[in-house]
């Protein structure tokens, strides 16, 4: 018994020591890796190569050279008689001196000094140097010539080489026909050509050009070529060094992350007072690392860049940017438009939410679905529709008003290319954000709170103002703030409506700056910091301040809200809501649909001369459209799938564990979704092009990561709320019945929350599918998406065609919504 007690007492002790040891080891490993990276960076600074990748190129070259030396030159030289070998050596020496002088690669003296120090290895070194110089800097050997030599059958190659050596040593010997194109002139020029041809016979056909291009791309500065050649010729750069130096920034990054993780783990364990590894912590760390690297680092870097443009503190960039009238104007426009949209949107959303959720309005279920559906429509599609309707010259509504009121043919009376125009379109696409927030809160409110007011003597109107409205206030404000942030960070609508009317906003200015190159990037940062600050402040207000005043909590009982009888107002109010729906939802969609069949956008679709199907045929017949569609589907699926896995993991951590540190990734995910799209994209551009050890610029990865950062929270919230509904006892019961944890997840929890998982997947997928703001900044020629394609069609090609594409996108979204509805048995649709 004493032994058992002792073991119990000892075991955690020993384990905690091992754990601590492992942590220290990991921390040290991190420091070592980072240290290697730093020394690699320093070494590179000392050699002065323009890019760290130079070492990889040198290593590449020396490996290539080793092969040529071993398979061709060494056997060849060894097979020559002593005297001929000496003459060939002399010849190589002369050639080396000549080519170095010619190419300004270095001086003869330099070459001699190098060769003399080599001693016994002189010959090897000399040939290797000559080979490297010819390959990289020497007269270019054309692909055709290479091909001709490569075409020589294997059994005749030895003969060819012998003939070449002969020709080098003997001026009068005949130049073989296969290489005659390469050999020009006489004497030393002829020898140079022949030597090069000899080198080529030892190469694999495709390898050499690859080595050359790698080298030239990595070491741009010609002055550092001799050093590079020497390093390659003497095999100075081994595989480890080239790895460390060429990836020094990655090493530093990985090292820092490793050390940071070890530190974080130590802090977590200290907090829990349990010194043991828990798999959950590794999962948290994995998610946190991902978010730190791709979300926080870019944001922090941008702030630093904005205030420390030249590595010292300066407000110069900021000052210059915001004294420039165009930018100041953009700033003003953004603030005015967002504020107006917030006010207008909330004023629209509250009564709509009330009428639809709490009264006996006709068709309220239909209206509710309709207003929520608008949420899923890409905003730029709405912008396109309103542009068609309110264009001052040919806008449908303008034409109609002119004929109705017998106005002159002058443009107007309404002009969408203006700040009010933009505000209107923003409102019509962002009011659903407030609508959804408010109606959710309204449906959760305990109806007896209002009944208590009625029985206390309050009329329905008094009740509305003294009870309902104050109780709704937190949701109302957070809905309004959501509209504000969304409008401020919107790019699609201002770019389509604002730009032609010269109504600039911060987002459009940022995108313009980014297209201006390096200086532009710095300036864009200055603008983005403003947008980011705005978002962070509002996020803080709505999450921290309002959360404390949140009255509405989900009660266990299902609440059936009391329905207010509208009586005499029922018909007029129903008509009013229907009218609103027609104006805000139906007319824009019909306009898009109609325009897609038009030849002349100014005339009616019903006019047979103006009706055509070619727009649809052209757009959907093009390979490029299909490629973009494919890209969009792939990127959005990948983002949604990885996103939902993270979401499920996070939900489990948040709902089922008390583990410390689980709030950290949650906070980062919330921050990510609150960050304006343009800012996320800009941050990624500035930090993901290799300068911090990760180079995914111009790839699909950068876009997928951007989508995930922006939309992860939507998926996560859905799964979290579903999991909070599944009482832990259901899982415990399954485990008590003998099921393993995994089986419990698969058989009990999984099926119960499956509808929400599916919904979460779609909530990430759909906005990623038609994303525009981030894509505009991150796309490359091979990674264009359907949203960007639509934007290009609209801006550069033709409006009817873009309308066809837009309607196609809408159809896909509607079909996906239908699938979601079916998949979740009607529980979810967006």
């Amino acid at each position, binding site marked *: 018994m004493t032994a058992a007690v002792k073991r119990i007492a000892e075991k955690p002790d020993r384990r905690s020591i091992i754990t601590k040891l492992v942590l220290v080891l990991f921390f040290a490993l991190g420091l070592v890796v980072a240290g290697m990276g730093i020394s690699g960076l320093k070494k590179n600074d000392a050699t002065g190569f323009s890019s760290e990748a130079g070492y990889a190129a040198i290593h590449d070259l020396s490996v290539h050279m080793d092969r040529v030396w071993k398979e061709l030159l060494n056997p060849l030289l060894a097979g020559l008689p002593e005297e001929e070998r000496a003459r060939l050596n002399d010849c190589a020496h002369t050639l080396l001196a000549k080519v170095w002088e010619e190419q300004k690669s270095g001086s003869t003296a330099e070459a001699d000094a190098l060769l003399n120090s080599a001693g016994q290895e002189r010959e090897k070194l000399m040939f290797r140097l000559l080979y490297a110089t010819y390959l990289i800097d020497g007269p270019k050997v054309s692909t055709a010539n290479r091909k001709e030599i490569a075409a020589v059958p294997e059994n005749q190659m030895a003969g060819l080489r012998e003939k070449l050596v002969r020709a080098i040593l003997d001026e009068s010997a005949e130049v073989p026909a296969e290489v005659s194109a390469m050999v020009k002139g006489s004497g030393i020029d002829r020898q140079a050509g022949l030597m090069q041809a000899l080198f080529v016979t030892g190469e694999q056909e495709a390898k050499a050009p690859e080595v050359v291009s790698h080298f030239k791309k990595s070491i741009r500065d010609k002055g550092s070529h001799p050093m590079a050649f020497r390093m390659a010729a003497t095999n100075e750069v081994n595989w480890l060094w080239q790895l460390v130096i060429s990836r020094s920034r990655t090493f530093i990054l990985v090292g820092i992350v490793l050390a940071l993780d070890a530190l974080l783990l130590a802090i977590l364990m200290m907090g829990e007072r349990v010194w043991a590894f828990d798999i959950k912590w590794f999962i948290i760390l994995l998610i946190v690392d991902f978010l730190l690297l791709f979300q926080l680092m870019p944001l922090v870097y941008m702030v630093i860049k904005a205030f420390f443009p030249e590595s010292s503190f300066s407000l110069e960039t900021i000052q210059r940017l915001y004294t420039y009238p165009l930018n100041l104007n953009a700033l003003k426009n953004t603030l005015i438009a967002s504020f107006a949209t917030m006010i207008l949107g909330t004023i629209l959303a509250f009564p709509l939410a009330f009428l639809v959720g709490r009264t006996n309005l006709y068709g309220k279920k239909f209206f509710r679905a309709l207003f929520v559906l608008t949420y899923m429509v890409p905003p730029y599609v709405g912008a396109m529709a309103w542009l068609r309707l309110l264009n001052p010259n040919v806008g449908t509504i303008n034409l109609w008003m002119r004929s109705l009121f017998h106005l002159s043919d002058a443009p107007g009376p309404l002009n969408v290319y203006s700040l009010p125009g933009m505000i209107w379109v923003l409102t019509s696409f962002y009011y659903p954000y407030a609508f959804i927030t408010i109606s959710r809160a309204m449906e959760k409110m*305990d109806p*007896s*709170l209002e*009944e*208590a*007011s*009625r*029985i*206390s*003597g*309050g*009329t*329905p109107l*008094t009740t509305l103002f*003294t*009870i309902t409205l*104050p*109780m709704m*206030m937190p949701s109302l404000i957070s809905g309004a703030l959501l509209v504000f942030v969304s409008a401020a960070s919107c790019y699609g609508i201002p770019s389509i409506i604002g730009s032609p009317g010269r109504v600039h906003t911060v987002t459009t200015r940022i995108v313009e700056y980014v297209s201006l190159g390096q200086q532009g990037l710095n300036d864009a940062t200055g603008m983005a910091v403003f947008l980011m600050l705005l978002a962070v402040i509002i996020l803080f207000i709505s999450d921290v301040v309002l959360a404390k005043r949140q*009255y509405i909590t989900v*009660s266990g*009982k299902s609440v059936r809200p*009391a329905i207010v009888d509208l009586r005499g107002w029922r018909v007029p109010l129903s008509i009013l809501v229907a009218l609103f729906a027609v104006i805000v939802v139906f007319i824009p969609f019909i306009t898009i649909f109609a325009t897609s069949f038009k030849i002349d956008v100014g005339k009616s679709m019903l006019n047979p001369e103006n009706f055509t199907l070619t727009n649809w045929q052209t757009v959907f017949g093009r390979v490029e459209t299909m490629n973009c569609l494919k890209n969009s589907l792939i990127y959005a699926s990948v983002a949604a799938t990885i996103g939902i896995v993270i979401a499920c993991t996070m939900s489990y951590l948040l709902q089922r564990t008390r583990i410390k540190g689980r709030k950290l990734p949650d906070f980062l995910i919330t921050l990510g979704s609150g960050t304006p799209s343009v800012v996320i994209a800009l941050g990624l551009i500035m930090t993901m092009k290799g300068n911090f050890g990760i180079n995914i610029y111009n790839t699909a990865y950068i876009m997928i990561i951007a989508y995930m950062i922006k939309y992860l929270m939507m998926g996560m919230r859905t799964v979290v709320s579903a999991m909070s509904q599944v009482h832990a006892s259901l899982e415990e019961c399954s485990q008590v019945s003998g099921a393993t944890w995994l089986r419990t997840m698969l058989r009990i929890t999984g099926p119960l929350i499956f509808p929400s998982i599916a919904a979460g997947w779609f909530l990430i997928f759909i906005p990623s599918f038609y994303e525009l703001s981030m894509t505009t900044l991150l796309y490359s020629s091979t990674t264009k998406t359907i949203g960007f394609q639509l934007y290009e069609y609209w801006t550069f090609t033709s409006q009817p065609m873009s309308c066809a594409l837009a309607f196609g996108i809408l159809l896909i979204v509607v079909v996906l919504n239908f699938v979601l509805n079916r998949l979740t048995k009607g529980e979810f649709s967006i």
Partner: protein
Amino acid sequence: MGTVKIDHISKAFGNNVVLKEFNEVFEDGEFVTLLGPSGCGKTTMLRLIAGFEKPTSGELYIDDKLVSGGNTFLPPERRNIGMVFQSYAVWPHMNVFDNVAYPLTIKKRARNDIRTSVERVLEIVHLSQYAGRFPNQLSGGQQQRIALARALVAEPKLLLLDEPLSNLDAKLRESMRFEIKEIQRKLGITVIYVTHDQTEAMAMSDRIFLINRGVVQQSGSPEEIYNQPANQFVADFLGKVDFFKGVAENGKITFPSMNDQTLSYDGPHSGKVEVAIRPENLYFDDTGILRGTLEAQYYLGDVDDCRVRIGNELVRVIANGFEYRKRKNGDQVRLSVRDFMVFKDDGTLQKMLEIQT
């Protein structure tokens, strides 16, 4: 005055009839309880009186004034009623004082009057020191008292209570029960109380209306409906009871399922009957007429809860706790019956019981 006259009121939601022909008068100062299983229509009746629902047919009078019926409908705010909701429904954005003062504020009373009234009513519910607090700083029981104070502050003649104690823990529930009763007695108001808890109903009410599936099964004082239940449902819903099928003839009832043992009976029923026996009305008696075997004993301290096998029936007997050691399982025992209830066995009531359970 505080009378409520319910004149043939029916209520249906769509095709679902929840109240059938409710016809009753609640007198001034009476404590009336609407008792029944969940979904029986009792809350609907309360909401009809409050004015949150309109009756499908019938008329409702409060103090002899027509409030619902025909084309007349007085909205809740004009009925001058106090009401306490199951979820308390205290407003989280107002402090205790403002919550309680609300009915008077609506009536635009003078500020001093309001202060006096609120202080008085807070005194009654023992919340005087919490006037400045917000509801989320108070316990469930205290929130309950806020709701009560708010319902009482405007001095209504009629107070409606909708399962007000169901969200409280057992101890608190018991003490609140007596407090509410005490307040009602002090103020002399009419109270209509809705609950599914028979103990609450028995402890507080002057009259209990036992409702099932929208129909009043029986009304009367607690003692009346406990001892003289109108039908099997009432007998079953209040207290513990066992039913046995038997045949009544020649001054006795024969139980085929109990090896044809008999009980003497001179009541009005004959032929097939159902006999309801409360376990506390059976007792062990060496000269008893029912013979059986003791099969199980559950010692509960104050009582000894026994099962006696008689033929095919397992009969429950509640004996005194101190008798526990006198008997052991397997003993042959004899039982006497203090009292039993006899109902005609017409099959329909049996069906009703099945639905209820």
